[in-house]
């Protein structure tokens, strides 16, 4: 490995290279005081360089635990991990079925659709459902709701929270009768308490918040879902330079992915639609362009089919393309009444 690849400031790097240290092996074989003298830098700086050099070279040697490359896992171990992955229910069993049980944690899922189809509804439903306690099959976690367009209506969140508590109480009543289970402690206001709400008003705030999330979540470890409603809004109008926009967006997507993997939480990004001219006609497509569409692991498109709302798995590494119908009721997302024949596989 070459020395110029080390993450150092340019002046220090320049000094290193002009002193003749062009490869890692040459650096790691000297002591810090020699290095300091030769390259005309301070001892502390030399020490830092040596530390970095050792880290980088250490990673390319054979690791005793059986992996050729540091950080790689074999597929068998990953299978076990994938199967025990917790999922967040959407309260609509048809939708959960095509999603393999619900929105998966450790993944970034993009959900897009026309205005009024229910994106914000799904967002609010998920931020309530993630809080379902473990005894009821949920994750018992908290939610972060990042609102970029002011569509989060707290009255609606209260409605959904109340319905969720009612459903759980009904279940507890049953369990209590038959299995002597404990009484439900959760109240709707508690559910609202556990939704961390951020209102983002510009793309700079959005980028800053994404950077800050790492620290925030480290301090609030029970956050299990991050919902962004929507990622599109600030990037649609304020950006003049499309190249820069693509770059900023893909970095943001990467950061979200890192967050998802590091803290084992689900990231749900809500997207808007736009019309695109392809194959000789105008069609609907999710906004932010073609390069963005590669950035998310999973993609669900919400659309109207006749009189019903449908969700379609457009992109997923492990789930087949399928669509399922759902409805939005006063209690939140639920199965649609005509759900008998609705799950269509491609």
């Amino acid at each position, binding site marked *: 490995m070459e020395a110029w690849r080390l993450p150092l400031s340019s002046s220090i790097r320049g000094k290193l290279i002009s002193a003749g240290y062009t490869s890692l092996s040459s650096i790691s074989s000297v002591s810090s005081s020699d290095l300091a003298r030769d390259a005309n830098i301070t001892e502390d700086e030399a020490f830092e360089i040596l530390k970095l050099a050792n880290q980088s070279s250490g990673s390319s040697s054979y690791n005793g635990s059986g992996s050729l490359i540091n950080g790689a896992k074999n597929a068998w171990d990953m299978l076990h991990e994938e199967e025990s992955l917790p999922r967040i229910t959407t309260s609509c069993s048809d939708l959960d079925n095509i999603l393999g049980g619900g929105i998966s944690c450790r993944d970034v899922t993009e959900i897009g659709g026309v205005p009024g189809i229910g994106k914000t509804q799904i967002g609010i439903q998920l931020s309530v459902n993630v809080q379902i306690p473990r005894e009821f099959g949920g994750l018992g976690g908290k939610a972060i709701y990042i609102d970029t367009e*002011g569509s989060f209506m707290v009255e609606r969140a209260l409605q959904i929270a109340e319905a969720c508590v009612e459903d759980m109480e009904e279940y507890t009543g049953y369990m209590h009768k038959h299995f002597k289970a404990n009484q439900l402690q959760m109240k709707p206001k508690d559910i609202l308490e556990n939704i961390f*709400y951020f209102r983002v008003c510009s793309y700079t705030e959005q980028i800053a918040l994404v950077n800050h999330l790492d620290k925030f979540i480290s301090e609030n470890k029970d956050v299990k879902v991050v919902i962004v409603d929507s990622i599109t809004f600030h990037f649609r109008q304020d950006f003049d330079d499309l190249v820069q926009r693509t770059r900023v967006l893909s970095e943001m997507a990467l950061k979200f992915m890192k967050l998802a993997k590091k803290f084992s939480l689900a990231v749900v990004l809500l997207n808007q639609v736009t019309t695109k001219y392809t194959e000789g006609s105008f069609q609907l*497509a999710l906004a932010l362009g073609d390069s963005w569409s590669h950035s998310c692991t999973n993609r669900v498109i919400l659309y109207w089919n006749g009189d019903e709302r449908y969700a379609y798995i457009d992109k997923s590494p492990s789930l087949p393309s399928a669509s399922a119908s759902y409805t939005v009721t006063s209690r939140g997302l639920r199965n649609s009444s005509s759900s008998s024949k609705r799950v269509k596989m491609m």
Partner: protein
Amino acid sequence: MPEFELMELLDVGMKETKSAVALISEATSPPCQSARSLLERKVENEHLSGHLPTHLKGLDETLCGGIPFGVLTELVGPPGIGKSQFCMKLALSASFPAAYGGLDGRVVYIDVESKFSSRRVIEMGLESFPEVFHLKGMAQEMAGRILVLRPTSLANFTESIQELKDSILQNQVKLLVIDSMTALLSGENKQGAQRQHQLGWHISFLKSLAEFSRIPIVVTNQVRSQNRDETSQYSFQAKLKDGLQEHTKTYDSHLVAALGINWAHAVTIRLVLEAKSGQRIIKIAKSPMSPPLAFPFHITSAGISLLSDKGTELKGPGINTIHARGHSDMINFHGECS
């Protein structure tokens, strides 16, 4: 900016860059609130938990109190259906003292097409709130609270709203009505992308104005006919071919809201006013907290009133399509209408 570039620029090490970025990000990030505190704040501080009553019982119930504060509410419909009438009634309602369900504040009414009629507003006041209006000087006071602006161009409008942003709180402005947004934009000559960009700027500005001053902003929009090459399908839908889905395009004056899909995403509540077989209907086409209900209404000397407070629930694309059938017979109400 990616970290490597920052390092090059500032000539500092990786660690410093990382911590600088982290600090700046933390400082620039918006503050965190729990949803519960949002609710509590609304209930405590805002009139009727942040809603402006429309005095249409069915509508107010479904909208959890009325037109919500802090967001954009859109009224869209064909010409002559009653959008401006609705706006005038709202303006009146906002100017009322709190005891009568009003916001006790000023209203800024941006009247692009000269549809505002003070005579009509006073007539509405006298008919619908006689107890208040017959009091001496009340009519003058209420009407005095409604400030009407007639911008001559989009630039003029932009200037005015920017001015407004600074003075909104001290001047007790409690409602902003823009009638109509479409007319403002259609007067400009710019095409395509530039126009979207302009609209985009206004969307962001209006939304942030609404939020920071916690006032409702009501905007009216017009309709246009759907182009032949316009579609509402995704590429995968053609492949799905869901059995019975041979949706023939219904050609009964198929109208859509103007201003585009970006605008449709930006408004929080969309109320569609339409006419179907001679009956006027107001329906909630988009609202995060209400089911898609439709109410029949008519216009009297007291303004808009619902014929039934129990709405019918709509399904499917019916929610978003706008009808104007059988409408032309209704236009000549009292010889003037809008």
